[in-house]
């Protein structure tokens, strides 16, 4: 081959890599539909289609519509695979023939159809008939394209356990015949909730790891934000915008959440110059859009609270009255003891620590938050501000006994030391 030919071949390989990164999930989503919801066959076909592209594009040039080329190549690879199996099972010959006959319909790979396929994939991976753990694993694997190893690492579990979870979920999709569909309008609110919940859990796992040494796992949060963008782009639902806003507004504080030596910095201690202004602006715009719709829910309200924090130049300038008001609306929409705890903390900022402490004590007396470390550290903080040092120490000690995350533990130990000194 000439030097120029080698250059062209190298460029084509780079193009295949770039197309893989940008388009492989779209191609997969369409192949699953064309192959009647068969995830495994579609994945196999996807890999064969890219292998064919690596072989052909350097010689033939990159096709004008790479994605349509890959879908078509993947479909014919799948037809070949079914034909090979049909030698042992005559009934499959009909399946292969059906797929080949359908292959001539150009509507199947048009732009709108492809976007619908991505939504179909998201809704199928987050189907409420699948186990909650499996929904998260399947979404990260199929929609985000993360490897089983990467997902297992992020969730502190072993790759075989995670692979097993995905295999079982795919078997249920096949055996119970979970359809590859975007839900009908009547079912959309409930089904969208399930999808948003998966995205939110992925984000939280990335933002505040539930245990272990690292406080944040930025990769998972980035994936969750990408998923959130995908949903906002594909579905005009206010809560999808609310969730994306919430994630962006939390993410905007990432650099300020830990000090240079890896210690936890609470909201009122954070260096606000480190907050990501672009993410805040985008998040605030999304919150306003969702609030205007008047069809918003808990994610939008939490995002609105985060937006009030984001708009305050310093902690003391925070509009606490507005935050308490937003918590009141949130409690009506989605009552939970954790939201009550957060409202009590906001109330302490608006009306003073004694008012907040009364609420926290009443909440703890009900028992639901008795083992929740943040309830005890919130109580400790209010006691400290009221000058009740001995009680504050006891409450920090209780929080420390319950906290599992290293940076949080160090933060509580630091507070305990300060109260001793």
């Amino acid at each position: 081959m000439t030097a120029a030919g080698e250059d062209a071949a190298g460029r084509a390989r780079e193009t295949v890599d770039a197309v893989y990164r940008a388009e492989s999930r779209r191609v997969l989503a369409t192949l699953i539909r064309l192959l009647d919801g068969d995830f495994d066959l579609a994945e196999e076909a996807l890999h064969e289609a890219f292998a064919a592209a690596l072989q052909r594009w350097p010689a033939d040039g990159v096709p004008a519509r790479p994605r349509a080329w890959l879908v078509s190549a993947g479909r014919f690879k799948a037809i070949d695979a079914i034909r090979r199996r049909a030698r042992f099972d005559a009934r499959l010959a009909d399946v292969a023939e059906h797929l080949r006959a359908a292959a001539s319909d150009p509507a199947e790979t048009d732009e709108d159809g492809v976007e619908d396929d991505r939504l179909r994939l998201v809704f199928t991976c987050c189907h409420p008939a699948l186990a909650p753990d499996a929904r998260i694993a399947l979404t990260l694997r199929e929609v985000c394209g993360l490897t089983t190893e990467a997902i297992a690492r992020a969730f502190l579990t072993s790759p075989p356990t995670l692979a097993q979870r995905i295999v079982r979920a795919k078997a249920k999709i096949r055996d119970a015949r979970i359809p590859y569909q975007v839900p009908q309008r009547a079912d959309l609110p409930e089904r969208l909730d399930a999808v948003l919940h998966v995205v939110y859990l992925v984000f939280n796992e990335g933002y505040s790891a539930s245990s272990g040494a690292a406080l944040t796992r930025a990769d998972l949060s980035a994936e969750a934000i990408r998923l959130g963008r995908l949903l906002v782009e594909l579905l005009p639902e206010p809560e999808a915008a609310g969730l994306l806003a919430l994630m962006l507004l939390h993410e905007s504080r990432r650099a300020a959440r830990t000090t240079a030596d890896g210690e936890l910095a609470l909201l009122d201690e954070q260096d606000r110059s480190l907050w990501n202004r672009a993410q805040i602006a985008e998040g605030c715009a999304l919150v306003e859009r969702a609030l205007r719709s008047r069809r918003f829910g808990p994610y939008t309200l939490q995002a609105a609270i985060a937006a009030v924090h984001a708009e305050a130049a310093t902690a003391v300038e925070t509009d606490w009255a507005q935050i308490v008001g937003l918590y009141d609306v949130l409690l009506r929409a989605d009552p939970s003891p954790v939201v009550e705890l957060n409202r009590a903390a906001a109330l302490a900022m608006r009306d003073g620590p004694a008012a907040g402490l009364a609420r926290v004590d009443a909440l703890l007396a009900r028992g639901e938050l008795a083992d929740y470390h943040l309830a005890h550290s919130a109580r400790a903080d209010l006691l400290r501000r009221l000058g009740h040092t001995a009680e504050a120490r006891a409450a920090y000690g209780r929080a420390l006994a319950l906290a599992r995350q290293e940076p949080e533990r160090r933060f509580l130990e630091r507070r305990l030391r300060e109260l001793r000194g």
Partner: protein
Amino acid sequence: MKYLCLIYDDEQVMDAMSKSEGEAFMGEYFAFTEGIRQSGHYVAGEALQPVASATTIRIRNGKVSTTDGPFAETKEQLGGFYLIEARDLNDAIQVASRIPSVRTGSIEVRPVVDFSQQQPSS
């Protein structure tokens, strides 16, 4: 595709219903059954006698054992079933969510194995 909808209810709650409540509940069942006959989902359906009438049979080491009662003691008991024909799980869930006991007990939806058809992936 066929799905079996297993209906679980707390028999004590059922027994505690007044005569008119019980009749209204049965009326809902008749209306539901008529509805799924018309929509073409219905294949079969029966209500069962209370678990007090149940007998469980096992053979272990060649010996038959016959015991009173159901296989497992639970708060909710199997009280009946529908066998339905549905397009897919979403369609089956739609049907099952209209079974009157869904509001008092719970419905387990199980796909039925079709030995006459083999899936391309298996």
